[in-house]
């Protein structure tokens, strides 16, 4: 059955594919893959809840850092490179939004949390995940002082641009690509909310 299916055009000598040989090889690779997959599945089953819990905890911490609030209700939305928007509610009133966006940094995407108050001003930026080069990219993404400079900016004077333009944000010298990445993320967040003071 297997051997006939693999026979070649009559012109060429038919290679002697004896089924036991083929079965042994396929069987071994199949067995190894199944074993590894099973092992991984079990490990994942064990670790998934813990990882999700840790991840959720990290996001909560980042959210409360940018915009302190009692609770955050996720909203549905349609916006470019925005992964989630949460409505921040503290003692019953909507006090603003927390937007999770990702933008291209120098070595890979930078995922960040941007807090925006009800007038559309940035209340804080915190980086969730990045793979910037240490000592260069991290001068921007790793340094909270630099990120805090975004606080208070909005789309009132147009898009935030790095080292120039009306709505100016002076990035860290030598790490312009990373600075532009973070600025792009903040712009995306502000645009998603669409409120300008």
């Amino acid at each position, binding site marked *: 059955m*297997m051997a006939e299916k*693999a026979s*070649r055009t009559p012109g060429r000598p038919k*290679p*002697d*594919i004896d089924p036991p*040989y*083929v079965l042994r*090889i*396929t*069987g*071994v*690779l*199949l067995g*190894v*893959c*199944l074993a*590894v*997959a*099973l092992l*991984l*599945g*079990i490990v*994942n*089953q064990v670790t*998934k809840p813990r990882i999700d819990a840790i991840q959720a905890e990290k996001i909560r911490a980042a959210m409360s850092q940018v915009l302190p609030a009692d609770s955050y209700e996720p909203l549905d939305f349609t916006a470019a490179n925005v992964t989630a928007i949460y409505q921040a509610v503290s003692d019953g009133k909507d006090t603003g939004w927390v937007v999770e966006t990702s933008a291209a940094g120098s070595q890979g995407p930078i995922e960040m949390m941007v807090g925006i108050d009800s007038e559309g001003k940035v209340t804080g930026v915190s980086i969730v995940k990045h793979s910037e080069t240490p000592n260069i990219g991290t001068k921007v993404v790793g340094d909270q002082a630099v990120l805090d400079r975004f606080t208070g900016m909005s789309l009132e004077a147009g898009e935030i641009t790095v080292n120039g333009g009306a709505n100016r944000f002076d990035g860290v010298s030598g790490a312009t690509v990373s600075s532009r990445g973070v600025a792009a993320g903040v712009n995306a967040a502000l645009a998603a909310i669409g409120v300008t003071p």
Partner: protein
Amino acid sequence: MNIFYAVLILGILGGVFGLVLAIASKVFAVKSDPKLALILDCLPGANCGGCGYPGCAGCAAAILAKKAPVNACPSCSGLQTSRIAAVMGVEVKAQERRVAFVRCSGGSRASHKFRKYVGIDDCVAAMKVAGNGPLDCAYGCLGLGTCVRACKFDAIHINEYGAAIVDQNKCTHCMQCAKACPRGVITDVPYASDIMVPCGNRDKGPAAKSLCTVSCIGCRLCEKNCPAGAITVTDNHAAIDYTKCTSCGFCVEKCPRKLIRDIHATGKVEPVA
């Protein structure tokens, strides 16, 4: 559920690729005659090219296809060649072992055109400098090691005087060094014979004397004193006929330049003092 999908997908991938690889291994199986592997084992496997075929695999294929004689591989010892002959079921002709020999021992003693050659340290490159090389003597060894790099059996080195010298025990007579040498200083001699002339100079006496302190000046003393008549001096250079030479050593005493010598006197090929 999640585990089931994981196992399912990787299982399918593993199975499909296992199948493809199994069939491919058969379709692409390289048809090889078992004798080829046997012959290949007997060959030294250094791919030196002495047999004229692309590496040992090429030589083995040629021997198998009877295009090459059983002793096509010059680097094979007698034992290896007889084993190949056994595989091929052919009787092998007895063959006397030969090895490479450097017809120069001057090195630092030869006069140089300029104090020190500074450039690409390779004889072929040096030959392109100042009229084929920094040495005044046109037949001498430049000592820059092209032959050392060409030899796959680590059998030839540059001695302390700066001339190449062959370690006869390691030499397998593949003659890659001779092919690599831009000046053709290296020839091959029978392993067994002792008396050698480590110089290849063809200039007349006085010129040869000025070119190098250990050169053959063609004075014919060795030729006159050789009882077996094995030495003939042709265009100012003493050449030994190894079939006639009885290694009596008369020529060694008579040579005014202390050049002709018994290289096996101290068991190992020594450079000319």
